[in-house]
């Protein structure tokens, strides 16, 4: 039988970049239960690091909305991650892809996180639920 998470798993993160290391260890633990391939683990880790670091670095949270909630569910061949935060409405899918730089002198470091998420997740959806942002990312073997 295909390995699956019997129920959705949750992790609550503070708005602090140092939390990303704790998240990475937690994702690895879930990935072991699901017996995910190295490629799937890499994509999950990449997209979730980008999602969380965007929220921490750019999101403005009102008092009481500081927590970020990460949930994971699914099975070996279809993992879904939900990222919820109480910050100002921010739909990353509305951000245009970065302009390709033509030379190293013109290249601007940064702005790549959302582009990478869109390329490495199988599907991304954004929802605004009351005062919360929810980003849903699906991962299937590519």
């Amino acid at each position, binding site marked *: 039988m295909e390995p699956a998470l019997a129920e959705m798993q949750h992790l609550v993160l503070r708005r602090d*970049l*140092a939390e*990303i*290391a704790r998240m*990475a260890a937690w994702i690895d633990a879930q990935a072991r239960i699901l017996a995910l391939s*190295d*490629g799937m683990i*890499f994509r999950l*880790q*990449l997209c979730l*690091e*980008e999602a969380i*670091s965007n929220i921490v670095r750019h999101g403005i949270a009102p008092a009481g909305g500081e927590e970020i909630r990460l949930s994971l569910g699914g099975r070996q061949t279809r993992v879904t991650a939900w990222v919820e935060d109480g910050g100002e409405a921010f739909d990353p899918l509305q951000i245009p892809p*970065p302009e*390709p*730089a033509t*030379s*190293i*002198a013109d*290249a601007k*470091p*940064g702005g*790549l*996180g959302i*582009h*990478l998420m869109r*390329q*490495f997740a199988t599907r991304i959806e954004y929802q605004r639920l009351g005062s919360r942002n929810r980003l849903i990312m699906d991962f299937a073997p590519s």
Partner: protein
Amino acid sequence: MELAAEEIEGGITRIVLDGRLDIAGAGAIDLRFNTLAGSRRAVVVDLSRVSFLASMGIRLLLTGAKAVGSKGGKMVLLGPDPAVEKVLKTAGIDTLIPIHHDARGAIAAVKP
């Protein structure tokens, strides 16, 4: 995340990165990496022991390459594993910082 630097032939510096080039890994080495990049004109960054790369790691590589390039120098990347290379290519970095898979080619590419 570990960083080791060695001078190889003809004024070329090889910087070996080892570990996860995620937000924590990039933060752990950015000062040393930028100091090296800011003072060298021919740099080979060996990525063969890097198991993970996210956008903060790309930012580190790009900032370093800009510092080397601003002095008229050259920086190349050596030996990324397929997953790391896919991130580099998806980000369009391979067109700005050449990727090599053999050390000889990398050294020849940066030689002053």
